[in-house]
């Protein structure tokens, strides 16, 4: 498997990024804040209205270094990409599958299978690790319900039915998610998902983690030559990276939710870093966001065994390996898309 390189996150607003030889140089007015060799980078992600020189954009595009612009709060603005990777044969087959609801369902159900399987094992693992703290019967009941959903998903060939099963599985999982928060419970609690805007600390963290994950997934899909905007479960909508959302289904829980839980449970963040706007929207301050990004980078370096490839890879390469497997399935090398089934 390829090597995971670093992602450079630029969180200082009002900085300007430029190219100097083989290096990226970060400036704030006349001061040089940092200088990093490009060959160590996989992606550059800027928060705030940082400018980037055209020369640097070109260099990033040439080397397939993902260059993404986000608002300070982590909303996606734009991405610089070079010539599309891969070729039209792969993308056309992707479009053909996407146009065919039944064929779409066959791929989509494996995304959902992965999502529910991973949700189940997040819960199962928690019951093992914190047997004395959790309401075990309650969680076991949800876990059993998730198993049932999986059996249903396994034979579904219809997208609407699939969405139905997925929806009820999500309700089950969300109903016990709050139990998994073991520390700082007065300030971090989960009473349901809200995102536009997030209305509590946990939702603010989840939203931010999903943004980081969606960026990684989108880059991974593009780097293997797939079109991140043409999905199977998520249908076409202008401006929506549907395939990235599809692939995120199986990774949300196991990648982002568990990450958020560990930030809270290990007290790597504290409630003082969050503030509430007049309308109830909850935002993170810059230091907390930095802390989250730092944790995210560390998580990406951790190693796991890929369940299908049986190869040791870092967490950060999971989106890439799944994108690669999806491309190989679309090209006909594999009988099905192998979801990332974590345990």
């Amino acid at each position, binding site marked *: 498997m390829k090597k995971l390189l670093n992602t450079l996150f630029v969180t200082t607003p009002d900085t300007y990024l430029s190219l100097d030889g083989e290096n990226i140089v970060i400036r704030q007015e006349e001061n040089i804040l940092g200088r990093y060799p490009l060959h160590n980078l996989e992606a550059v992600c800027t928060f705030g209205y940082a400018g980037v020189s055209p020369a640097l954009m070109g260099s990033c595009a040439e080397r397939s270094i993902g260059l993404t612009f986000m608002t300070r709060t982590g909303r996606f603005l734009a991405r610089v990409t070079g010539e599309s990777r891969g070729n039209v*044969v792969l993308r056309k087959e992707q479009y053909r599958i996407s146009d065919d609801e039944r064929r779409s369902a066959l791929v989509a159900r494996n995304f959902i299978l992965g999502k529910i399987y991973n949700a189940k094992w997040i819960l199962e693992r928690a019951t093992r690790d914190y047997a004395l703290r959790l309401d075990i019967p309650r969680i076991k009941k949800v876990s059993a319900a998730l198993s049932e959903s999986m059996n249903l998903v396994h034979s579904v060939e219809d997208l609407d039915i699939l969405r139905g099963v997925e929806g009820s599985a999500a309700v089950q999982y969300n109903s016990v998610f709050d139990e998994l928060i073991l520390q700082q419970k007065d300030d971090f609690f989960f009473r349901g998902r809200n995102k536009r805007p997030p209305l509590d600390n946990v939702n603010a963290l989840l939203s931010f983690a999903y943004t980081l994950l969606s960026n990684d997934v989108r880059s991974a899909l593009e780097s293997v030559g797939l079109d991140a905007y043409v999905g199977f479960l998520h249908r076409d909508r202008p401006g929506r990276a549907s395939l990235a959302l599809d692939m995120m289904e199986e990774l949300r829980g196991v990648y982002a939710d568990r990450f958020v839980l560990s930030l809270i449970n290990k007290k790597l963040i504290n409630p003082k870093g969050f503030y509430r706007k007049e309308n109830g929207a909850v935002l993170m301050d810059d230091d907390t966001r930095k802390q989250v990004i730092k944790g995210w980078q560390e998580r990406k370096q951790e190693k796991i065994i890929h369940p299908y490839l049986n190869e040791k890879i870092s967490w950060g390469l999971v989106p890439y390996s799944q994108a690669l497997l999806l491309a190989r399935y679309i090209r006909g090398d594999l009988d*099905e898309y192998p979801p990332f089934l974590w345990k």
Partner: protein
Amino acid sequence: MPDYNEDDYLLLSGIQHFNFCRRQWALIHVEQQWEENVRTLEGTYVHRIADQPHLREKRGNKLIVRALPVHSGTLGITGICDVVEFVRDPAGIPLSGEEGLYLPYPVEYKRGKPKKNDSDRSQLIAQLMCLEEMLACDLSLGYLYYNETKHRVEVPVTLSDREQVKAVLQEMHHYFAKKHTPKAKAGPHCQSCSLHNVCLPEMLKKRSVASYIESRLSE
């Protein structure tokens, strides 16, 4: 056999990829995937000397031309000869702008040293066949220059060599028309392949995804 349409020409350099591994060739030429590794960078480095299209040298009875674009309609290929040496020869052909008669000899630059198998030869033979077709002459010799040994190896080209190259090219055209990436056998050669990460050769010998899912669900 009718000539190939120019749009259907394949890259001459692909012959070597194809001989190395059909799947590698398809990944690069059909799927347009490319990853650099030490070996490919070395290759690029070795070619920097050859890749100077504006350099034209005369040395004694030789005219040395670099980065010469060539093609063959009958074979349906196009590519670039690293170096072509035109040597004065009474049996040669006239060249526009030059006095006397010349015979061309393609020289292909390679990293490393001469290989045990003859995987480097086919590319050179195809170049030679292009030159024959473009210059309307008969050739029987080319050279492989190896960067590690700094020596060139003389490569005589026989009729059966040509037949072999023709057969390989026909197979390549067949795959390309189908836009098909063949599955290939994984082997020791995979270790030196720069496309290892894209190809995932291990994946091809794996059990089916259906059984992977089945076994996970039954846990």
